[in-house]
């Protein structure tokens, strides 16, 4: 039973660690995509504030006070570290409200689903090589520029598309 609990804890540790990484990445992305970098945009900070309000509620914080909101208003606070620390505290110290602890079966189910959908691309190659080249293995350099992926596009109906039609 002890071994079972150890394995369960170990898996949960990895899963929660990954979630934490992504949450921090999202916070940093909002910082990097901030209004100050793109002066024509008006609602960036407001979107960020709403995002963090929702996250705070999710992690059991009953209310976000003005000081917390100011922390994420980059017009009032330019300290990115303070925002990351705040998010760390949220995700490390708090348990999401109204959520039961996961069962090992539930975690296994999710992991197995992940394994079944495993991709050919070895994503970890990026970690080892800051200038990945593996996607170029089968591509013609000239052809790569025929269909550049310029942006993630969203049409007037809110539908997102990212790829110009292939030639």
């Amino acid at each position, binding site marked *: 039973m002890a071994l079972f609990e150890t394995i369960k804890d170990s898996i949960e540790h990895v899963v929660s660690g990954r*979630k934490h990484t992504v949450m921090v990445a*999202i916070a940093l*992305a909002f910082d990097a995509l901030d209004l100050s970098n793109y002066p024509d945009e008006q609602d960036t900070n407001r979107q960020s504030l709403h995002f963090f309000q929702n996250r705070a509620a999710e992690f059991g914080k009953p209310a976000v006070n003005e000081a917390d909101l100011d922390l994420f208003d980059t017009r009032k606070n330019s300290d990115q570290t303070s925002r990351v620390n705040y998010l760390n505290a949220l995700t490390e110290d708090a348990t999401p409200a109204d959520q039961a602890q996961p069962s090992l079966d539930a975690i296994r189910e999710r992991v197995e689903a992940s394994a079944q959908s495993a*991709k050919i691309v070895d994503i970890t190659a*990026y*970690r080892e090589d800051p200038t*990945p080249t593996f996607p*170029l293995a089968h591509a*013609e350099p000239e052809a*790569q520029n025929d269909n550049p992926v310029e942006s993630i596009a969203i049409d007037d109906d809110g539908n997102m598309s990212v790829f110009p039609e292939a030639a």
Partner: protein
Amino acid sequence: MISKLLTGMRSKKQLDQHTDLSRKLIRREAELGGQLFGEIPKGHRREFFCLDTHTWIWHEEWIDEYGALQTTTTRYEMRPNGVLKSQNGSGFRTLTKAEADNLRKAIQLYHSKVVEPLYAHA
């Protein structure tokens, strides 16, 4: 001595298991992330995922009219002073305003459509 050796082997095995699980989680995120942008054209493979705290990856593969596999990998680096973008390992450049807006929307969707469902109990 033997006990120390066995402990070391167990630690190594556990580390490998953690690494393998982390890879599987990222791959699952990549698959779900690729579905955020609407229907994927037949014959295409699309992935969008958070690589680490500072990096987002968008990867596309498709077969062109000559039957050759084409790929485009776009890497977004989050820096304190903005976002830098690199495609297929080329040099970095800054984003246009429209692309920054779209990327932000994509990351918001990533949270609601990928992170929340996948890690609902984490």
